């Protein structure tokens, strides 16, 4: 889903290096600051960039944000809620001899943490929704990430979709023959699908190797990425934004 949204992003052709730098620096500041103002600025900025500039549908964006939000709420609850025989200052719900209770300090801390986490997530979503995997690999390559890793990632990204396609085709074929009638046949069908998938993958790997050999493959995958020149304006905006964000961080610290 993220992948198909990313194809439609208007920010896709912006320089991947600038986008990655923006997302990562913002992420680091956001985590380091862990303050409301910083988180709020980051959250809003990324939302505006992704939905308004990138034209990612707001509904999809919100739905994606809800996924980590659910986990976060559970995590925050653990920080806030204590079970104690002494009621604390924020709230206290009597439960027999005990109280479900929390302190103001803990509530504040949990909210700050939650805010920082959500803002960090928007940084990663900004990168994921507006930059294709291919472009991110290009950045990794430019950063001299070992070619073994980038080549593997490239192949995995290409073939994970084929694997899923094949698996779903096999499953449909099994379903059509009542392969999932009950738990027993279901398990057996799943095992057989695994076997078939493995064999097909092996065959495909061999065929792919042959096809690459036929194009003079010599052990190193050399490819060219499409040029996305970094625009001075974008770099300037990124620098200004990060500087401003650092300013907000310092201000919220000394306040």
């Amino acid at each position, binding site marked *: 889903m993220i992948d198909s949204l990313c194809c439609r992003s208007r920010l896709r052709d912006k320089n991947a290096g600038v986008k990655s730098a923006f997302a990562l620096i913002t992420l680091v500041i956001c985590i380091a600051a862990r303050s409301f103002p910083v988180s709020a600025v980051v959250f809003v900025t990324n939302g505006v960039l992704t939905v308004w500039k990138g034209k990612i549908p707001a509904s999809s964006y919100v739905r994606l944000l809800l996924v980590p939000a659910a986990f976060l709420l559970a995590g925050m609850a653990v920080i806030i809620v204590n079970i104690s025989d002494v009621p604390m200052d924020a709230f206290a719900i009597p439960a027999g001899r005990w109280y479900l209770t929390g302190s103001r300090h803990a509530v504040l801390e949990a909210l700050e943490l939650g805010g920082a986490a959500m803002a960090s997530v928007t940084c990663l979503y900004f990168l994921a929704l507006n930059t294709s995997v291919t472009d991110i690999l290009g950045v990794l390559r430019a950063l001299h990430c070992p070619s073994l890793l980038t080549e593997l990632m490239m192949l995995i990204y*290409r073939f994970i979709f084929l694997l899923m396609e094949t698996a779903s085709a096999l499953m449909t074929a099994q379903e059509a023959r009542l392969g999932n009638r009950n738990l027993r046949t279901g398990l057996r069908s799943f095992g057989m699908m695994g076997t078939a998938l493995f064999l097909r993958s092996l065959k495909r790997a061999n065929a792919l190797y042959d096809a690459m050999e*036929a*194009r003079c493959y010599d052990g190193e995958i*050399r*490819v*060219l*990425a499409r040029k996305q020149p970094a625009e001075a304006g974008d770099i300037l905006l990124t620098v200004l934004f990060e500087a401003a964000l650092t300013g907000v961080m310092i201000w919220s610290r000394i306040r």
Partner: protein
Amino acid sequence: MEQDKMKEDSVIRVENLSYTYEGNDRKALDGISLEIGRGRKVAFMGGNGSGKSTFFLCLNGLLRPREGRILIDGQPIRYTRKGLLEVRKKVGIVFQEPDNQLFSASVYQEISFGILNLGADEQTARREVEHVIAELGIAPFQDRPAHALSGGQKKQVAIADILVMHPEIIILDEPAAALDPEHTEIVHRIVDDLTGQGITVLMSTHDIDYALGWADEIVLMHEGKVLRKDAALSVCMDREALETAHLREPSVLRLFRNLTEKKILKEGRKPPKTMGQLESYLSGE
């Protein structure tokens, strides 16, 4: 006279080629000898398992024959690193299943792979890649990841993969397999452009009507042997050979035969290669 000239300029020459797959008793290729002239359009036909694909893999040096030899441009294939590089530079092969050929999710990266392997510098490579993207009409979908392309679009990219390397010989293994009519048409048009540029094209196909209209020569293969190799028309008129190879007679020839037998067409006319030709006979009558 013309025959002699062709002999001199045979771009591929195969002598007594045999190949057996590991763990298999039957020979996949059994003593194949043939010659292919430069710039010719040759269709390879025959049932599944008749040896077409194996033969193609041998021409590209991917399989090393047990017996016999292959000469490309008069030079026997040398099975060394350098020798194979030379062969693969000259002989490009477009595989039947594009999903087994495209390794990158990005169309641009995918196409740049071959030309970079030939040692082109970045500037040249970019120019070539962009040229072939424009030439094959890939531009409208070049920014989509490979898994979001249709079968026909993947095929176009697979051909671009090879074309960018400027081979002298292009082998297409069932290029129209599993394509809809629209994309079959696109692929056929690309193939016509190739021959227009003087590239030798070898193609395996099951579509005998297309083969008759397109090819200069047809090679009929059966059980690892060459059953017939001749001008397209004379192979297609050899009903006995076609039957052995489990092929049917092209519709246009069958219609022509019937029309001639029923005296609707005058006898002694040259058999047509395409429906269009037959129609012009009929309207001319």
